[in-house]
């Protein structure tokens, strides 16, 4: 294993030392708040290093997962340091090298890491300039920087690399250096091509699946056939004797094999599956509509999320109620989860596509009873994860198996069915909405009541271990009963509080911490279902008020940025007052500000409904987004477009299948997703706000997309669908 110190040494840098644990050095009095993740990683040299060879390395705790964060962060750093983009190298998510920024989640990477790097780099530039000024005998203000070369008025110059030894970055950031005004940005605001893409289309080593270490073995797991199955017996000898099999691990109901060749590991897995005898229990909730009744009947606390009353409001003359549902849905990564693990001299090295290498390290250390320092987790990209999928779990699987291989590294990849049967799903949810209109058709009352399982059971909790196999061991490690993510971001109740100006609002949640089917963060957490319900209900109220849905939304909104995205989407879509569709074609509209904190997004969707088959097609969608200052416009477009289409897939097609004992979704045949011929044309309008702070964009489109589709179907057919997904069978039944 390479330590950061060795890494820095071997890379030839003049270092500046290592200081990733500055908290120890801080005075007890709470220190001044620093921008973004600088607040938790306060030393400048934790964020960047000037290399004598003429490059600058930036360090981020946020990881690349195909969202282009490496490119966006480089743009920010290059601007603050006056560097050509090519000079910037980036190291992401490595417990030995980078700051701890928790999870790469919640659409927070640019907000947290980008902000930290912006201020750290601005301050580093000031330090470099003041060192240069002392050497050149001038004042920092008289100096000009071009691509790392600092020039004094008389023509004398120095470079950052000349100063690498003198400029002290081993110090706590002050957060006082002033970042560049937008007018001076050379890189931020441009659609710079992503740095991770070329290798992905030329067979480069781009993914954890592409890691090959000397002596590496291939591993596979055999999971129980159902969540609560107990292992009765297993004929290990039959598998141990198979050609190529090097190790077989059986610990409680955890089973895994390692073999010299990958196909041998796959074959051994099949044999081990056959050799295992299980006792299964019917521990799962009922499926279909009965699931929602089941959830609503569970004895859990009723918690008020928000309550606002106004005595002055007019009485309601019309009241509506509606219940919306969302099934369990899967992340469904195209590449099953994978990790490489190696044990050497009591130390564990893991290569992982986890979204949080530090939280993963914390849980692994607990499982193996070692200090976190004995575990190094290095992030390497995997297939897109869309939240908490099997990435962390497979890291523990690989580490458990690698303990039995005498120091040889193991690459363990799940099979397709492992992924579908064992990833933590997006929770099923029920949303009951009620509202009242006054005689003017304005909303005077609003109530949103929801039922949900957990949305965040990631590793790194203060107590317990949130890794799948830890629960399967002979001596299982306790899992903490997960708490809901608190407001204002919210978890189950994310986006349940309307942004609309309403006199009376009540939001109540029934959070169900005990989940018979493991659930965790799927893009947007509860936001997708809550926005689907909220924005569907807005349309139902608009219809009851005989109002145009766009005008109705604007009527209840003051926030100028919210209004602007609604107007922009309506304008680009060519929204008109034209009322119902012709029975088969319709248009719907929806809006949300993700988490009520991140980007604003409004979507207009056009659908066609085949009344005979019940098949719905989204033909075109227009999204308008305000993400504050935009670092990489094409990156924003890609996130919004991808999120919108992924949401169309969730909305039209996706529901996990299970019976009372087993998850029965095993392959893509059991879990259809949107295909090329079903994908809508998408246009994205960006409302750039160069003087505003960054607003996360990765989860902005999903909620509004679902509601816009539901509203478009209602517009086309006059029939309101409230139960996701809108499969042909369900649509056909509703139209009958």
């Amino acid at each position, binding site marked *: 294993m390479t330590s950061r110190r060795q890494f820095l040494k071997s890379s030839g840098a003049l270092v500046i030392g290592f200081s990733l644990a500055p908290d120890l050095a801080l005075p007890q009095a709470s220190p001044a708040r620093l921008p973004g993740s600088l607040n938790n990683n306060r030393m400048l040299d934790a964020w960047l290093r000037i290399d004598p060879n003429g490059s600058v390395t930036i360090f981020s705790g946020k990881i690349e997962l195909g969202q282009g964060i490496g490119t966006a962060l480089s743009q920010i750093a290059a601007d603050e340091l006056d560097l050509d983009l090519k000079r910037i190298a980036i190291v992401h998510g490595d417990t030995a090298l980078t700051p701890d920024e928790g999870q790469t989640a919640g659409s927070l990477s640019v907000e947290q890491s980008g902000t930290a790097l912006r201020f750290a780099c601005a301050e580093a530039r000031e330090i470099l300039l003041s060192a240069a000024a002392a050497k050149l005998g001038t004042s920092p203000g008289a100096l000009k920087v071009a691509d790392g070369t600092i020039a004094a008025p008389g023509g004398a110059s120095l470079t950052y690399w000349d100063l690498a030894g003198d400029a002290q970055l081993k110090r706590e950031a002050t957060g006082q250096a002033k970042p560049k005004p937008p007018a001076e940005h050379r890189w931020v605001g441009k659609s710079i091509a992503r740095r991770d893409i070329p290798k992905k289309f030329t067979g480069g080593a781009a993914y954890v699946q592409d890691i090959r270490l000397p002596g590496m073995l291939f591993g596979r797991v055999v999971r129980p056939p159902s969540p609560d199955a107990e292992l009765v017996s297993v004929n290990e000898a039959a598998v141990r004797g198979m050609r190529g099999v090097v190790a077989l691990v059986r610990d409680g109901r955890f089973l895994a094999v390692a073999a010299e060749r990958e196909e041998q590991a796959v074959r051994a897995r099949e044999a081990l599956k056959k050799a295992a005898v299980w006792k299964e229990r019917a521990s799962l909730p009922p499926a279909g509509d009965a699931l929602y009744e089941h959830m609503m009947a569970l004895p859990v606390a009723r918690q008020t999320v928000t309550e606002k009353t106004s005595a002055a409001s007019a009485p309601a003359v019309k009241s509506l109620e509606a219940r919306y549902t969302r099934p369990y849905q899967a992340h469904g990564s195209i590449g099953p989860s994978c990790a490489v693990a190696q044990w050497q001299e009591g130390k564990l090295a893991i290569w992982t596509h986890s979204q949080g290498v530090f939280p993963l390290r914390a849980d692994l250390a607990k499982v193996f009873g070692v200090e976190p320092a004995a575990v190094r987790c290095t992030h390497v990209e995997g297939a897109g994860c869309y939240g908490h999928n099997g990435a962390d779990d497979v890291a523990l699987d690989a580490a458990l198996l690698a303990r039995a291989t005498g120091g040889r590294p193991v690459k363990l990849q799940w099979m397709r069915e492992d992924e579908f049967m064992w990833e933590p799903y997006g929770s099923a949810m029920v949303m009951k909405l009620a509202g009242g209109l006054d005689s003017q058709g304005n909303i005077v009352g609003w109530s949103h009541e929801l039922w949900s399982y957990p949305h965040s059971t990631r590793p790194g909790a203060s107590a317990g271990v949130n890794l799948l196999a830890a629960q399967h061991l002979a001596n299982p490690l306790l899992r903490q009963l997960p708490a809901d993510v608190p407001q204002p971001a919210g978890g189950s109740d994310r986006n349940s509080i309307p942004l609309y100006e309403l006199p009376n609002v009540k939001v109540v949640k029934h959070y169900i911490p005990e989940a018979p089917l493991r659930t965790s963060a799927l893009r947007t957490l509860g936001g997708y279902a809550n926005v689907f319900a909220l924005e569907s209900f807005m349309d139902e109220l608009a219809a009851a008020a005989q109002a145009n849905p766009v005008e109705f939304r604007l009527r209840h909104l003051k926030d100028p940025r919210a209004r602007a995205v609604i107007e922009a989407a309506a304008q680009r879509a060519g929204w008109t007052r034209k009322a119902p569709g012709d029975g088969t074609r319709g248009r719907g509209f929806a809006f949300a500000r993700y988490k009520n904190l991140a980007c604003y997004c409004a979507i207009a969707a056009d659908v066609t409904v085949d009344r005979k088959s019940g098949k719905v097609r989204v033909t075109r969608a227009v999204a308008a987004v305000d993400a504050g200052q935009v670092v990489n416009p094409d990156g924003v477009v890609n996130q919004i*477009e991808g999120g919108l289409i992924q949401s169309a897939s969730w909305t039209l097609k996706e529901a996990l299948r299970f019976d009372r004992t087993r998850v029965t979704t095993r392959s893509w045949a059991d879990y259809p997703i*949107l295909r*090329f011929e079903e994908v809508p044309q998408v246009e994205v309008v960006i409302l750039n706000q160069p003087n505003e702070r960054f607003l996360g964009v990765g989860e902005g489109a999903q909620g509004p997309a679902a509601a816009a589709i539901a509203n478009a179907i209602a517009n086309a057919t006059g029939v309101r669908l409230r139960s996701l997904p809108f499969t042909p069978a369900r649509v056909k039944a509703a139209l009958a």
Partner: protein
Amino acid sequence: MAKFSVWVNGERKTLSVDADTPLLYVLRNDVGLNGPKFGCGLAQCGACTVLVGGKPVRSCVTPMSAVKGPVTTIEGLGTLDKLHPLQRAFIEEQACQCGYCGNGMVMSAKALLERNPAPTAGQIRRALNGHLCRCASHNRIVRAVQRAAKEMRS
């Protein structure tokens, strides 16, 4: 074990593997290629697609004993220094997020452009309909194939 002699990206490879070994594992682990990906092992997603004798096949379900022609993978199309027009177009259109499915998209597009040098958007969608993309880069992928087709015609 059986001995196989296979042309991979213009190089002759002699391999001793079991006859039922999926071509995918041989390409990844014996030949050392990264392009073809394991996605489902069931021929459902397309991430493992390679060309055998110019035709796209799902290498995850193709046993070595069934490989009857020269194999081309994405590495065989071009390199970082000398990109194939399809690779260049996918990069220029920024036609992915995670990119895990990208190998299959490029390889099936290659086969499509061989038989139809000027496909319409609809024809491209049809040709790629058996490939899954979860990040939802579909529209970018279609544009990339159109861009490559245009460059290859000129």
